[in-house]
């Protein structure tokens, strides 16, 4: 306290120290919830066909062995992901339907709140067996990033286009039921050093960033080599 008093009668340090305390206090109060919200919750509700051991990804043909394992990290709002989907989406769908590959989708949400809502809704659609259809429909109608177009109401309406009649889907979307799962997917992506979307691995190896993301031929070649 001795320091707080300035013998010369000018400004003392009390105000300054108070300001420092306030600024640090406010920043800490903001930091703590951020740190807590990033924690993986192992009790999180997960949509059907999600595999915890595959980084909380949405896995198709999980039972198959001796087939290529394709892992796709994407964000529903990312334009490059929409482009990738338009180039290889149908082929991957075909591989799933003909049981020629095991495929894991990881819906990341780093582009913002609307990505989070979309990833949650994707989980809700998966419970109705409509993940692939949801995936395709969403990319085909991708709006500008965080423009407000994607809301719980929007995803509810989307069920009409997907042929979902269940009330559970609406409830799941409205309550953001898979919020914790979406966080877990993001955390696993961060641990796996995913630094851009889309990022695609075939049998654990990333495909060539200069070629295989932009060309169906190159992508098919990468799959056939695996």
């Amino acid at each position, binding site marked *: 306290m001795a320091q707080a008093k300035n013998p010369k009668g000018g400004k003392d340090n009390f105000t*300054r120290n108070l*300001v*420092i305390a306030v600024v640090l206090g406010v920043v800490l109060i903001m*930091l703590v919830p951020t740190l807590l919200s*990033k924690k993986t919750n192992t009790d999180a509700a997960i949509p059907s066909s999600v595999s915890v051991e595959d980084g909380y990804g949405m896995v198709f043909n999980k039972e198959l062995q001796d087939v290529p394992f394709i892992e796709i990290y994407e964000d529903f709002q990312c334009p490059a992901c929409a482009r990738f989907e338009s180039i290889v989406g149908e082929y991957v769908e075909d591989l799933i339907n003909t049981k020629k590959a095991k495929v894991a989708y990881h819906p*990341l949400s*780093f582009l913002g709140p609307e990505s989070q809502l979309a990833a949650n809704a994707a989980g809700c659609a998966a419970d109705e067996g409509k993940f692939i259809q949801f995936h395709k429909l969403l990319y085909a109608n991708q709006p500008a990033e965080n423009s407000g177009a994607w809301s719980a109401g929007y995803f509810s309406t989307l069920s009409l286009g997907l042929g979902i009649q269940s009330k559970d889907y609406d409830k799941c979307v409205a309550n953001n039921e898979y919020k914790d799962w979406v966080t877990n997917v993001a955390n696993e992506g961060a641990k796996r050093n995913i630094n*851009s979307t889309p990022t695609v691995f075939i049998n654990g190896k990333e495909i060539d960033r200069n070629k295989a993301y932009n060309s169906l031929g190159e992508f098919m070649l990468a799959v056939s080599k695996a």
Partner: protein
Amino acid sequence: MKEKFVILQPWIGLVARLILGGVLFLAGFLKVDEPDKSQMAVRAYEMLPISIANLLGLTLPFVEVAIGALLILGSLTRFMAALGGFTMVIFIIAIAQAWARGLNIDCGCFGGGGTVAPGETKYLQEILRDLGLAFLAAYLIRYPSTKFSLDKNQNSKSSQEEVA
């Protein structure tokens, strides 16, 4: 010339404080609610183990906000300028190593970040900007007494006494 500098010095200091503090505050503020992106930006430099990069990505925006705010207010000017200058030097090293290793990343300084298409990198601009900010920090370390600061300020007090 020298007398002129004595009068101008605290005003230059004020400008330096506001620019350095303002940029740090803004850079941090734009990232605090985008922790996923911020973590991605730090990982993309490929300098740190992934878990440490993720932790830094979470906390760095808050540190920037704190240093920026205290610089704007002029509290502990010399110490905060040293911290700000230190982060600028680290950023310059990080960007330079990414450039030298041929990584294609965005610096993620004001949000964004991560891998970008080859040819979309802006390493030179990013380094020059951070060099400028580091220079402002150096000025504030050398001349920490500035106008409208909360620090107890020997120089400006004596000049006030002279005026009085």
